Protein backbone atom coordinates (compact mmCIF):
# COMPACT_ATOMS: atom_id res chain seq x y z
CA UNK A 1 0.00 0.00 0.00
CA UNK A 2 1.34 3.42 -0.94
CA UNK A 3 1.55 6.01 1.76
CA UNK A 4 -0.77 8.70 0.50
CA UNK A 5 0.55 12.22 0.67
CA UNK A 6 -2.31 14.40 1.78
CA UNK A 7 -2.13 18.05 1.11
CA UNK A 8 -1.10 19.94 4.17
CA UNK A 9 -2.93 23.02 2.92
CA UNK A 10 -6.27 21.41 3.65
CA UNK A 11 -7.40 21.16 7.24
CA UNK A 12 -9.95 18.43 6.69
CA UNK A 13 -11.19 18.44 10.24
CA UNK A 14 -12.01 22.13 9.97
CA UNK A 15 -13.71 21.54 6.64
CA UNK A 16 -15.75 18.65 7.98
CA UNK A 17 -16.91 20.80 10.87
CA UNK A 18 -18.65 23.02 8.32
CA UNK A 19 -20.90 20.17 7.18
CA UNK A 20 -23.61 19.61 9.77
CA UNK A 21 -24.70 16.36 8.17
CA UNK A 22 -21.35 14.69 8.77
CA UNK A 23 -22.19 14.52 12.45
CA UNK A 24 -25.11 12.20 11.74
CA UNK A 25 -25.02 8.56 12.75
CA UNK A 26 -26.47 5.90 10.48
CA UNK A 27 -27.87 2.96 12.42
CA UNK A 28 -25.55 3.93 15.23
CA UNK A 29 -22.49 4.12 12.98
CA UNK A 30 -20.58 7.18 11.81
CA UNK A 31 -21.76 8.25 8.40
CA UNK A 32 -19.15 7.51 5.74
CA UNK A 33 -20.54 9.40 2.78
CA UNK A 34 -18.90 8.18 -0.42
CA UNK A 35 -21.66 9.24 -2.79
CA UNK A 36 -20.66 12.82 -3.54
CA UNK A 37 -20.59 12.27 -7.29
CA UNK A 38 -24.36 11.73 -7.14
CA UNK A 39 -24.80 14.83 -5.03
CA UNK A 40 -22.52 16.56 -2.56
CA UNK A 41 -23.33 17.60 0.98
CA UNK A 42 -23.89 21.26 1.79
CA UNK A 43 -21.59 23.38 3.96
CA UNK A 44 -22.99 25.72 6.58
CA UNK A 45 -22.17 28.70 4.32
CA UNK A 46 -24.63 27.50 1.70
CA UNK A 47 -27.36 26.69 4.19
CA UNK A 48 -26.89 30.05 5.89
CA UNK A 49 -27.06 31.95 2.61
CA UNK A 50 -30.37 30.33 1.75
CA UNK A 51 -31.81 30.90 5.20
CA UNK A 52 -30.54 34.48 5.21
CA UNK A 53 -32.22 35.17 1.90
CA UNK A 54 -35.53 33.85 3.20
CA UNK A 55 -35.33 35.51 6.60
CA UNK A 56 -34.01 38.95 5.78
CA UNK A 57 -34.53 40.05 2.19
CA UNK A 58 -36.77 37.83 0.17
CA UNK A 59 -38.97 39.00 -2.70
CA UNK A 60 -39.43 38.18 -6.35
CA UNK A 61 -36.71 39.70 -8.49
CA UNK A 62 -36.04 41.71 -11.65
CA UNK A 63 -39.35 43.54 -11.76
CA UNK A 64 -39.62 44.96 -8.25
CA UNK A 65 -39.00 48.59 -7.39
CA UNK A 66 -38.91 48.03 -3.65
CA UNK A 67 -36.10 47.41 -1.23
CA UNK A 68 -36.55 43.66 -0.76
CA UNK A 69 -36.79 43.04 -4.46
CA UNK A 70 -33.75 45.19 -5.21
CA UNK A 71 -31.66 43.42 -2.57
CA UNK A 72 -32.74 39.99 -3.75
CA UNK A 73 -32.12 40.87 -7.39
CA UNK A 74 -28.62 42.02 -6.51
CA UNK A 75 -27.88 38.86 -4.56
CA UNK A 76 -29.21 36.61 -7.29
CA UNK A 77 -27.43 38.45 -10.08
CA UNK A 78 -24.20 38.35 -8.09
CA UNK A 79 -24.29 34.60 -8.68
CA UNK A 80 -24.01 35.23 -12.38
CA UNK A 81 -20.78 37.08 -11.74
CA UNK A 82 -19.58 34.29 -9.50
CA UNK A 83 -20.34 31.62 -12.10
CA UNK A 84 -18.65 33.67 -14.81
CA UNK A 85 -15.59 34.01 -12.57
CA UNK A 86 -15.62 30.28 -11.70
CA UNK A 87 -15.57 29.28 -15.36
CA UNK A 88 -13.51 32.29 -16.43
CA UNK A 89 -16.21 33.36 -18.86
CA UNK A 90 -15.50 36.69 -20.49
CA UNK A 91 -18.97 38.09 -20.00
CA UNK A 92 -21.63 37.60 -17.32
CA UNK A 93 -24.29 37.52 -20.03
CA UNK A 94 -22.90 34.17 -21.11
CA UNK A 95 -24.19 32.54 -17.91
CA UNK A 96 -27.70 31.08 -18.19
CA UNK A 97 -29.29 29.67 -15.07
CA UNK A 98 -31.00 26.31 -15.47
CA UNK A 99 -32.30 23.68 -13.03
CA UNK A 100 -29.42 21.27 -13.48
CA UNK A 101 -27.00 19.96 -16.09
CA UNK A 102 -29.77 17.96 -17.69
CA UNK A 103 -31.83 21.05 -18.40
CA UNK A 104 -28.77 22.88 -19.71
CA UNK A 105 -28.10 20.10 -22.21
CA UNK A 106 -31.77 19.95 -23.21
CA UNK A 107 -31.76 23.70 -23.73
CA UNK A 108 -28.87 23.40 -26.17
CA UNK A 109 -30.44 20.35 -27.85
CA UNK A 110 -33.69 22.25 -28.38
CA UNK A 111 -32.52 25.73 -29.09
CA UNK A 112 -29.20 25.15 -30.85
CA UNK A 113 -30.13 21.68 -32.11
CA UNK A 114 -33.55 22.37 -33.60
CA UNK A 115 -32.95 26.08 -34.11
CA UNK A 116 -29.53 26.21 -35.72
CA UNK A 117 -28.53 22.70 -36.78
CA UNK A 118 -29.77 21.27 -40.03
CA UNK A 119 -31.21 17.79 -40.57
CA UNK A 120 -28.45 15.58 -41.86
CA UNK A 121 -25.84 17.13 -39.61
CA UNK A 122 -24.37 14.92 -36.91
CA UNK A 123 -23.91 15.19 -33.16
CA UNK A 124 -20.92 13.39 -31.64
CA UNK A 125 -21.10 12.03 -28.11
CA UNK A 126 -18.75 9.58 -26.42
CA UNK A 127 -19.14 6.04 -25.21
CA UNK A 128 -19.00 7.17 -21.61
CA UNK A 129 -21.83 9.66 -21.39
CA UNK A 130 -24.42 10.03 -18.69
CA UNK A 131 -28.00 9.49 -19.95
CA UNK A 132 -28.48 13.23 -19.64
CA UNK A 133 -25.97 13.67 -22.44
CA UNK A 134 -27.37 10.87 -24.59
CA UNK A 135 -31.15 11.04 -24.54
CA UNK A 136 -31.52 14.72 -25.55
CA UNK A 137 -29.43 14.01 -28.68
CA UNK A 138 -31.48 10.91 -29.45
CA UNK A 139 -34.64 12.97 -29.16
CA UNK A 140 -33.07 15.60 -31.42
CA UNK A 141 -32.18 12.89 -33.92
CA UNK A 142 -35.70 11.49 -33.92
CA UNK A 143 -37.42 14.88 -34.13
CA UNK A 144 -35.05 16.78 -36.37
CA UNK A 145 -33.24 14.24 -38.52
CA UNK A 146 -29.75 14.75 -37.19
CA UNK A 147 -27.43 11.81 -36.84
CA UNK A 148 -25.96 10.54 -33.58
CA UNK A 149 -22.35 9.36 -33.59
CA UNK A 150 -20.53 7.76 -30.70
CA UNK A 151 -16.81 8.23 -30.16
CA UNK A 152 -15.44 4.99 -28.70
CA UNK A 153 -13.27 4.56 -25.61
CA UNK A 154 -10.35 2.23 -25.05
CA UNK A 155 -10.27 -0.46 -22.40
CA UNK A 156 -8.67 1.86 -19.88
CA UNK A 157 -11.74 4.08 -20.14
CA UNK A 158 -10.15 6.86 -22.14
CA UNK A 159 -11.53 8.49 -25.24
CA UNK A 160 -10.03 6.97 -28.42
CA UNK A 161 -8.78 10.15 -30.01
CA UNK A 162 -7.99 8.68 -33.42
CA UNK A 163 -11.47 7.23 -33.71
CA UNK A 164 -12.91 10.51 -32.47
CA UNK A 165 -11.13 12.47 -35.14
CA UNK A 166 -12.22 10.03 -37.82
CA UNK A 167 -15.87 10.86 -37.08
CA UNK A 168 -15.38 14.27 -38.66
CA UNK A 169 -14.14 12.96 -42.00
CA UNK A 170 -17.37 13.50 -43.92
CA UNK A 171 -17.78 17.07 -42.69
CA UNK A 172 -21.25 16.48 -41.31
CA UNK A 173 -20.55 16.97 -37.63
CA UNK A 174 -22.16 20.16 -36.35
CA UNK A 175 -21.87 19.64 -32.62
CA UNK A 176 -19.85 17.59 -30.16
CA UNK A 177 -21.37 16.94 -26.73
CA UNK A 178 -18.95 15.18 -24.47
CA UNK A 179 -18.36 14.73 -20.79
CA UNK A 180 -15.43 16.53 -19.23
CA UNK A 181 -15.15 13.78 -16.61
CA UNK A 182 -16.90 10.43 -16.50
CA UNK A 183 -19.17 9.86 -13.52
CA UNK A 184 -18.48 6.12 -13.70
CA UNK A 185 -14.83 5.74 -14.62
CA UNK A 186 -13.52 8.99 -13.20
CA UNK A 187 -11.68 9.64 -16.47
CA UNK A 188 -11.14 13.20 -17.57
CA UNK A 189 -11.45 13.73 -21.28
CA UNK A 190 -8.79 15.79 -23.08
CA UNK A 191 -11.10 18.76 -23.48
CA UNK A 192 -8.63 21.02 -25.25
CA UNK A 193 -7.84 18.51 -27.95
CA UNK A 194 -11.48 17.53 -28.32
CA UNK A 195 -12.33 21.15 -28.94
CA UNK A 196 -9.38 21.85 -31.25
CA UNK A 197 -10.29 18.92 -33.44
CA UNK A 198 -13.97 19.83 -33.51
CA UNK A 199 -13.25 23.46 -34.30
CA UNK A 200 -10.84 22.46 -37.04
CA UNK A 201 -13.81 20.70 -38.62
CA UNK A 202 -16.23 23.54 -38.06
CA UNK A 203 -18.16 21.90 -35.22
CA UNK A 204 -19.17 23.47 -31.92
CA UNK A 205 -18.51 21.75 -28.59
CA UNK A 206 -20.61 21.37 -25.45
CA UNK A 207 -18.77 19.97 -22.45
CA UNK A 208 -20.73 18.27 -19.69
CA UNK A 209 -18.85 19.55 -16.67
CA UNK A 210 -21.17 18.07 -14.05
CA UNK A 211 -18.31 16.12 -12.50
CA UNK A 212 -15.24 17.99 -13.72
CA UNK A 213 -16.03 21.38 -12.20
CA UNK A 214 -16.22 19.81 -8.77
CA UNK A 215 -12.67 18.60 -8.88
CA UNK A 216 -10.66 20.81 -11.14
CA UNK A 217 -10.33 24.40 -12.28
CA UNK A 218 -12.25 24.95 -15.51
CA UNK A 219 -11.41 27.80 -17.87
CA UNK A 220 -13.90 28.00 -20.71
CA UNK A 221 -11.88 30.67 -22.48
CA UNK A 222 -8.63 28.73 -22.34
CA UNK A 223 -10.52 25.65 -23.54
CA UNK A 224 -12.40 27.72 -26.10
CA UNK A 225 -15.55 25.76 -25.17
CA UNK A 226 -18.71 26.83 -26.96
CA UNK A 227 -21.05 25.52 -24.25
CA UNK A 228 -20.32 24.24 -20.77
CA UNK A 229 -22.87 22.91 -18.25
CA UNK A 230 -22.67 22.12 -14.57
CA UNK A 231 -25.13 21.43 -11.79
CA UNK A 232 -25.19 23.21 -8.43
CA UNK A 233 -25.95 20.25 -6.19
CA UNK A 234 -22.73 18.43 -7.04
CA UNK A 235 -20.68 21.56 -6.33
CA UNK A 236 -21.78 21.70 -2.67
CA UNK A 237 -24.65 23.96 -3.68
CA UNK A 238 -28.44 23.66 -3.57
CA UNK A 239 -30.56 21.47 -5.79
CA UNK A 240 -32.71 23.19 -8.39
CA UNK A 241 -29.98 25.39 -9.85
CA UNK A 242 -27.38 24.80 -12.53
CA UNK A 243 -25.43 26.77 -15.08
CA UNK A 244 -25.20 26.75 -18.84
CA UNK A 245 -22.31 28.75 -20.21
CA UNK A 246 -22.61 29.65 -23.88
CA UNK A 247 -20.54 31.94 -26.06
CA UNK A 248 -22.45 35.15 -26.44
CA UNK A 249 -22.72 35.11 -30.21
CA UNK A 250 -24.14 31.58 -30.07
CA UNK A 251 -26.66 32.41 -27.38
CA UNK A 252 -27.70 35.47 -29.33
CA UNK A 253 -28.23 33.50 -32.51
CA UNK A 254 -30.27 30.82 -30.77
CA UNK A 255 -34.07 31.06 -30.53
CA UNK A 256 -35.59 30.97 -27.06
CA UNK A 257 -36.85 27.66 -25.75
CA UNK A 258 -39.39 28.25 -23.01
CA UNK A 259 -41.71 31.23 -23.17
CA UNK A 260 -43.07 33.26 -20.31
CA UNK A 261 -42.43 36.06 -17.90
CA UNK A 262 -38.94 37.58 -17.66
CA UNK A 263 -37.74 36.35 -21.07
CA UNK A 264 -39.61 38.88 -23.18
CA UNK A 265 -38.97 42.40 -24.26
CA UNK A 266 -42.54 43.08 -25.38
CA UNK A 267 -45.65 40.97 -25.88
CA UNK A 268 -48.62 41.37 -28.17
CA UNK A 269 -50.80 38.51 -29.34
CA UNK A 270 -49.37 38.80 -32.82
CA UNK A 271 -45.75 38.82 -31.88
CA UNK A 272 -43.42 38.95 -28.94
CA UNK A 273 -39.83 40.10 -28.85
CA UNK A 274 -37.22 38.60 -26.63
CA UNK A 275 -35.15 40.00 -23.82
CA UNK A 276 -31.38 40.07 -24.20
CA UNK A 277 -29.29 37.05 -23.34
CA UNK A 278 -29.22 35.43 -20.86
CA UNK A 279 -32.76 36.47 -19.88
CA UNK A 280 -34.12 35.21 -23.19
CA UNK A 281 -33.49 31.72 -21.84
CA UNK A 282 -34.77 32.28 -18.32
CA UNK A 283 -38.57 32.11 -18.41
CA UNK A 284 -40.58 32.51 -15.23
CA UNK A 285 -39.58 33.10 -11.67
CA UNK A 286 -36.12 31.59 -11.30
CA UNK A 287 -34.75 29.48 -8.47
CA UNK A 288 -33.93 32.63 -6.52
CA UNK A 289 -33.03 31.18 -3.15
CA UNK A 290 -31.07 28.40 -4.81
CA UNK A 291 -29.19 30.90 -6.97
CA UNK A 292 -28.17 32.76 -3.85
CA UNK A 293 -27.11 29.46 -2.29
CA UNK A 294 -25.03 28.64 -5.36
CA UNK A 295 -23.14 31.88 -4.97
CA UNK A 296 -22.19 30.83 -1.46
CA UNK A 297 -21.12 27.43 -2.77
CA UNK A 298 -18.92 28.95 -5.44
CA UNK A 299 -17.32 31.34 -2.97
CA UNK A 300 -16.79 28.49 -0.57
CA UNK A 301 -15.08 26.36 -3.21
CA UNK A 302 -12.98 29.32 -4.32
CA UNK A 303 -12.05 29.95 -0.72
CA UNK A 304 -10.54 26.48 -0.49
CA UNK A 305 -9.12 26.70 -3.97
CA UNK A 306 -8.91 24.19 -6.77
CA UNK A 307 -5.23 23.40 -6.30
CA UNK A 308 -5.86 22.19 -2.76
CA UNK A 309 -9.07 20.40 -3.75
CA UNK A 310 -7.45 18.64 -6.69
CA UNK A 311 -4.41 17.62 -4.66
CA UNK A 312 -6.54 16.26 -1.83
CA UNK A 313 -8.77 14.31 -4.17
CA UNK A 314 -5.88 12.95 -6.18
CA UNK A 315 -4.30 11.64 -3.00
CA UNK A 316 -7.62 10.13 -1.90
CA UNK A 317 -8.06 8.48 -5.27
CA UNK A 318 -4.55 7.03 -5.25
CA UNK A 319 -5.15 5.72 -1.79
CA UNK A 320 -8.50 4.21 -2.78
CA UNK A 321 -7.07 2.61 -5.90
CA UNK A 322 -4.26 1.03 -3.99
CA UNK A 323 -6.41 -0.18 -1.07
CA UNK A 324 -9.23 -1.49 -3.25
CA UNK A 325 -6.99 -3.17 -5.82
CA UNK A 326 -5.43 -5.16 -3.03
CA UNK A 327 -8.75 -6.80 -2.19
CA UNK A 328 -9.04 -10.28 -3.64
CA UNK A 329 -11.85 -10.65 -6.14
CA UNK A 330 -12.29 -6.88 -6.47
CA UNK A 331 -11.91 -5.31 -9.90
CA UNK A 332 -11.52 -1.58 -10.33
CA UNK A 333 -13.32 -0.44 -13.48
CA UNK A 334 -11.49 2.19 -15.49
CA UNK A 335 -7.79 2.84 -15.48
CA UNK A 336 -7.52 6.22 -17.11
CA UNK A 337 -4.27 8.15 -16.62
CA UNK A 338 -6.03 11.40 -15.87
CA UNK A 339 -8.81 10.88 -13.38
CA UNK A 340 -10.89 12.50 -10.67
CA UNK A 341 -12.26 11.30 -7.35
CA UNK A 342 -14.59 8.54 -8.51
CA UNK A 343 -13.80 4.82 -8.28
CA UNK A 344 -16.09 2.12 -9.67
CA UNK A 345 -15.58 -1.51 -8.88
CA UNK A 346 -17.10 -4.97 -8.95
CA UNK A 347 -16.64 -7.82 -6.56
CA UNK A 348 -16.71 -11.53 -7.39
CA UNK A 349 -19.81 -13.32 -6.17
CA UNK A 350 -21.54 -10.15 -4.98
CA UNK A 351 -23.85 -8.02 -7.06
CA UNK A 352 -23.36 -4.27 -6.75
CA UNK A 353 -26.76 -3.80 -5.09
CA UNK A 354 -25.97 -6.38 -2.51
CA UNK A 355 -22.63 -4.71 -1.84
CA UNK A 356 -24.37 -1.38 -1.38
CA UNK A 357 -26.91 -2.83 1.02
CA UNK A 358 -24.21 -4.37 3.17
CA UNK A 359 -22.08 -1.24 3.15
CA UNK A 360 -25.13 0.79 4.11
CA UNK A 361 -25.55 -1.37 7.20
CA UNK A 362 -22.04 -0.31 8.14
CA UNK A 363 -22.93 3.37 7.66
CA UNK A 364 -21.14 3.63 4.31
CA UNK A 365 -23.01 5.29 1.46
CA UNK A 366 -21.97 4.25 -2.05
CA UNK A 367 -23.91 4.12 -5.27
CA UNK A 368 -24.66 0.86 -7.13
CA UNK A 369 -26.18 0.26 -10.52
CA UNK A 370 -25.67 1.57 -14.01
CA UNK A 371 -25.06 5.16 -12.81
CA UNK A 372 -27.30 6.53 -15.55
CA UNK A 373 -24.83 5.25 -18.11
CA UNK A 374 -26.33 2.06 -19.50
CA UNK A 375 -24.55 2.19 -22.85
CA UNK A 376 -21.21 2.51 -21.05
CA UNK A 377 -22.05 -0.50 -18.88
CA UNK A 378 -22.84 -2.40 -22.06
CA UNK A 379 -19.51 -1.35 -23.55
CA UNK A 380 -17.75 -2.59 -20.42
CA UNK A 381 -19.66 -5.87 -20.51
CA UNK A 382 -21.10 -5.19 -17.08
CA UNK A 383 -24.56 -4.95 -15.59
CA UNK A 384 -23.64 -2.62 -12.83
CA UNK A 385 -20.85 -1.46 -10.59
CA UNK A 386 -20.51 -0.14 -7.08
CA UNK A 387 -19.05 3.35 -6.98
CA UNK A 388 -17.29 5.26 -4.24
CA UNK A 389 -16.86 8.96 -4.88
CA UNK A 390 -15.08 11.59 -2.88
CA UNK A 391 -15.67 15.16 -1.82
CA UNK A 392 -13.55 17.79 -0.13
CA UNK A 393 -14.67 16.40 3.21
CA UNK A 394 -13.63 12.81 2.49
CA UNK A 395 -10.77 11.44 4.60
CA UNK A 396 -8.27 8.66 3.93
CA UNK A 397 -9.62 7.03 7.08
CA UNK A 398 -13.03 6.75 5.45
CA UNK A 399 -11.45 4.97 2.52
CA UNK A 400 -9.81 2.58 4.92
CA UNK A 401 -13.19 1.88 6.51
CA UNK A 402 -14.56 1.19 3.03
CA UNK A 403 -11.74 -1.17 2.15
CA UNK A 404 -11.88 -3.02 5.45
CA UNK A 405 -15.62 -3.40 5.16
CA UNK A 406 -15.43 -4.62 1.58
CA UNK A 407 -13.19 -7.42 2.74
CA UNK A 408 -15.96 -8.44 5.13
CA UNK A 409 -18.57 -8.11 2.40
CA UNK A 410 -16.57 -10.49 0.32
CA UNK A 411 -16.36 -12.97 3.19
CA UNK A 412 -20.10 -12.67 3.73
CA UNK A 413 -20.83 -13.72 0.17
CA UNK A 414 -18.12 -16.41 0.16
Amino acid at each position, binding site marked *: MNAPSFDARLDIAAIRAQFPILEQKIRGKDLVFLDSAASAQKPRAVIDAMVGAMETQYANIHRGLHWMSERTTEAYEATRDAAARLLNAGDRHEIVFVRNSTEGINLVAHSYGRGIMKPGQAVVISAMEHHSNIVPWQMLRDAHGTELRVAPINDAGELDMAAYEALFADGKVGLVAITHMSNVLGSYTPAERIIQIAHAHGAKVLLDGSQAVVHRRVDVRALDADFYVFTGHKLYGPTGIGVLYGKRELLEAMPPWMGGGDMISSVTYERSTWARVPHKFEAGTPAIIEGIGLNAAIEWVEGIGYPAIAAHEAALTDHALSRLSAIEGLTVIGRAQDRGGVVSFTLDRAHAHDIATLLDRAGIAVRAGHHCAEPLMHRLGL*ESTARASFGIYTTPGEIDVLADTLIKVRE*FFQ
Partner: protein
Amino acid sequence: MFEDLRDLYNATIIERGRRPRHMRRLEDFDATAKGDNPMCGDRVQVWVKYAGDGTIAATGFDARGCEISKAAADLMVEAVAGHSATSTRRLFAAFRTLAQTGECAECAEELKPMLPLAAVHEYPSRVKCATLPWHALIAALEGEGATTSE
Protein backbone atom coordinates in the same frame (compact mmCIF):
# COMPACT_ATOMS: atom_id res chain seq x y z
CA MET B 1 -20.00 -8.02 11.22
CA PHE B 2 -22.99 -8.55 8.98
CA GLU B 3 -24.64 -11.30 10.96
CA ASP B 4 -28.01 -9.54 11.17
CA LEU B 5 -28.02 -9.43 7.37
CA ARG B 6 -28.45 -13.20 7.28
CA ASP B 7 -32.11 -12.36 7.71
CA LEU B 8 -32.12 -11.12 4.17
CA TYR B 9 -29.25 -13.08 2.72
CA ASN B 10 -30.32 -16.42 4.15
CA ALA B 11 -29.36 -19.79 2.77
CA THR B 12 -32.36 -20.00 0.44
CA ILE B 13 -31.78 -16.60 -1.11
CA ILE B 14 -28.09 -17.19 -1.60
CA GLU B 15 -28.66 -20.60 -3.10
CA ARG B 16 -31.51 -19.54 -5.37
CA GLY B 17 -29.79 -16.29 -6.26
CA ARG B 18 -26.58 -18.01 -7.29
CA ARG B 19 -27.93 -21.15 -8.86
CA PRO B 20 -31.47 -20.41 -9.96
CA ARG B 21 -33.25 -23.55 -11.12
CA HIS B 22 -35.53 -21.91 -13.66
CA MET B 23 -33.34 -19.29 -15.24
CA ARG B 24 -33.79 -20.21 -18.86
CA ARG B 25 -35.59 -18.98 -21.88
CA LEU B 26 -38.55 -21.18 -22.89
CA GLU B 27 -38.17 -22.22 -26.49
CA ASP B 28 -41.88 -22.84 -26.82
CA PHE B 29 -43.87 -20.06 -25.12
CA ASP B 30 -47.20 -18.24 -25.36
CA ALA B 31 -46.35 -14.97 -23.69
CA THR B 32 -43.29 -13.00 -22.68
CA ALA B 33 -42.52 -9.61 -21.15
CA LYS B 34 -39.55 -7.63 -19.97
CA GLY B 35 -39.34 -5.72 -16.73
CA ASP B 36 -36.99 -2.84 -16.02
CA ASN B 37 -36.16 -1.18 -12.79
CA PRO B 38 -35.01 2.13 -14.25
CA MET B 39 -33.66 3.35 -10.95
CA CYS B 40 -31.01 0.69 -10.61
CA GLY B 41 -30.78 -1.08 -13.94
CA ASP B 42 -32.18 -4.44 -12.91
CA ARG B 43 -33.82 -6.17 -15.81
CA VAL B 44 -35.77 -9.39 -16.11
CA GLN B 45 -37.53 -11.19 -18.91
CA VAL B 46 -40.19 -13.81 -18.30
CA TRP B 47 -41.57 -16.46 -20.68
CA VAL B 48 -44.83 -18.31 -20.05
CA LYS B 49 -46.39 -21.41 -21.58
CA TYR B 50 -50.08 -22.04 -20.91
CA ALA B 51 -51.80 -25.36 -20.40
CA GLY B 52 -54.96 -26.20 -22.36
CA ASP B 53 -57.15 -24.68 -19.65
CA GLY B 54 -55.25 -21.36 -19.68
CA THR B 55 -53.36 -21.98 -16.47
CA ILE B 56 -49.61 -21.59 -16.35
CA ALA B 57 -47.88 -24.76 -17.47
CA ALA B 58 -44.31 -23.49 -17.42
CA THR B 59 -42.37 -20.31 -16.74
CA GLY B 60 -38.78 -19.40 -17.47
CA PHE B 61 -36.85 -16.23 -16.87
CA ASP B 62 -33.66 -14.42 -17.59
CA ALA B 63 -32.46 -11.85 -15.09
CA ARG B 64 -29.78 -9.26 -14.79
CA GLY B 65 -29.66 -8.14 -11.23
CA CYS B 66 -28.87 -8.92 -7.67
CA GLU B 67 -29.26 -12.12 -5.66
CA ILE B 68 -32.60 -10.98 -4.37
CA SER B 69 -34.21 -10.41 -7.72
CA LYS B 70 -32.92 -13.72 -9.07
CA ALA B 71 -34.04 -15.65 -6.02
CA ALA B 72 -37.44 -13.96 -6.13
CA ALA B 73 -37.84 -14.85 -9.81
CA ASP B 74 -36.80 -18.42 -9.22
CA LEU B 75 -39.21 -18.94 -6.34
CA MET B 76 -41.97 -17.21 -8.28
CA VAL B 77 -41.74 -19.73 -11.09
CA GLU B 78 -42.56 -22.53 -8.69
CA ALA B 79 -45.30 -20.60 -6.93
CA VAL B 80 -47.34 -19.79 -10.02
CA ALA B 81 -47.24 -23.18 -11.71
CA GLY B 82 -50.77 -24.36 -12.42
CA HIS B 83 -52.33 -20.99 -11.62
CA SER B 84 -54.74 -18.97 -13.74
CA ALA B 85 -54.08 -15.33 -14.53
CA THR B 86 -56.52 -14.30 -11.84
CA SER B 87 -55.05 -16.41 -9.10
CA THR B 88 -51.54 -15.34 -10.17
CA ARG B 89 -52.55 -11.76 -9.66
CA ARG B 90 -53.88 -12.70 -6.24
CA LEU B 91 -50.59 -14.38 -5.37
CA PHE B 92 -48.69 -11.30 -6.48
CA ALA B 93 -50.81 -9.08 -4.25
CA ALA B 94 -50.05 -11.32 -1.30
CA PHE B 95 -46.37 -11.47 -2.21
CA ARG B 96 -46.18 -7.72 -2.52
CA THR B 97 -47.62 -7.37 0.97
CA LEU B 98 -45.05 -9.86 2.21
CA ALA B 99 -42.22 -7.92 0.58
CA GLN B 100 -43.44 -4.57 1.84
CA THR B 101 -44.44 -5.54 5.38
CA GLY B 102 -42.91 -8.91 6.11
CA GLU B 103 -46.41 -10.22 6.86
CA CYS B 104 -48.15 -13.11 5.18
CA ALA B 105 -51.50 -13.39 6.95
CA GLU B 106 -53.42 -16.59 6.14
CA CYS B 107 -50.46 -17.40 4.01
CA ALA B 108 -51.33 -19.45 0.92
CA GLU B 109 -49.47 -22.72 0.64
CA GLU B 110 -47.81 -21.60 -2.59
CA LEU B 111 -46.43 -18.52 -0.92
CA LYS B 112 -44.80 -20.26 1.99
CA PRO B 113 -41.65 -21.02 -0.02
CA MET B 114 -41.36 -17.24 -0.46
CA LEU B 115 -41.08 -16.56 3.24
CA PRO B 116 -37.27 -16.37 3.03
CA LEU B 117 -37.85 -13.08 1.21
CA ALA B 118 -39.83 -11.60 4.10
CA ALA B 119 -36.87 -9.64 5.50
CA VAL B 120 -36.65 -7.54 2.34
CA HIS B 121 -39.27 -5.26 3.86
CA GLU B 122 -36.59 -3.88 6.14
CA TYR B 123 -34.68 -2.64 3.07
CA PRO B 124 -37.16 -0.36 1.34
CA SER B 125 -35.12 0.30 -1.77
CA ARG B 126 -34.68 -3.44 -2.30
CA VAL B 127 -38.38 -4.31 -2.29
CA LYS B 128 -38.51 -3.58 -6.01
CA CYS B 129 -35.76 -6.11 -6.63
CA ALA B 130 -38.10 -8.76 -5.29
CA THR B 131 -41.24 -7.57 -7.06
CA LEU B 132 -39.71 -6.87 -10.48
CA PRO B 133 -40.06 -10.45 -11.81
CA TRP B 134 -43.70 -10.46 -10.72
CA HIS B 135 -44.33 -7.21 -12.56
CA ALA B 136 -42.87 -8.78 -15.68
CA LEU B 137 -44.94 -11.94 -15.25
CA ILE B 138 -48.18 -9.97 -14.88
CA ALA B 139 -47.27 -7.89 -17.93
CA ALA B 140 -46.76 -11.12 -19.89
CA LEU B 141 -50.11 -12.50 -18.78
CA GLU B 142 -51.80 -9.24 -19.78
CA GLY B 143 -50.17 -9.27 -23.20
CA GLU B 144 -48.02 -6.19 -22.58
CA GLY B 145 -44.49 -6.46 -23.80
CA ALA B 146 -42.72 -4.51 -21.13
CA THR B 147 -43.12 -2.98 -17.74
CA THR B 148 -41.11 -1.10 -15.16
CA SER B 149 -41.10 -1.16 -11.42
CA GLU B 150 -40.53 2.44 -10.49
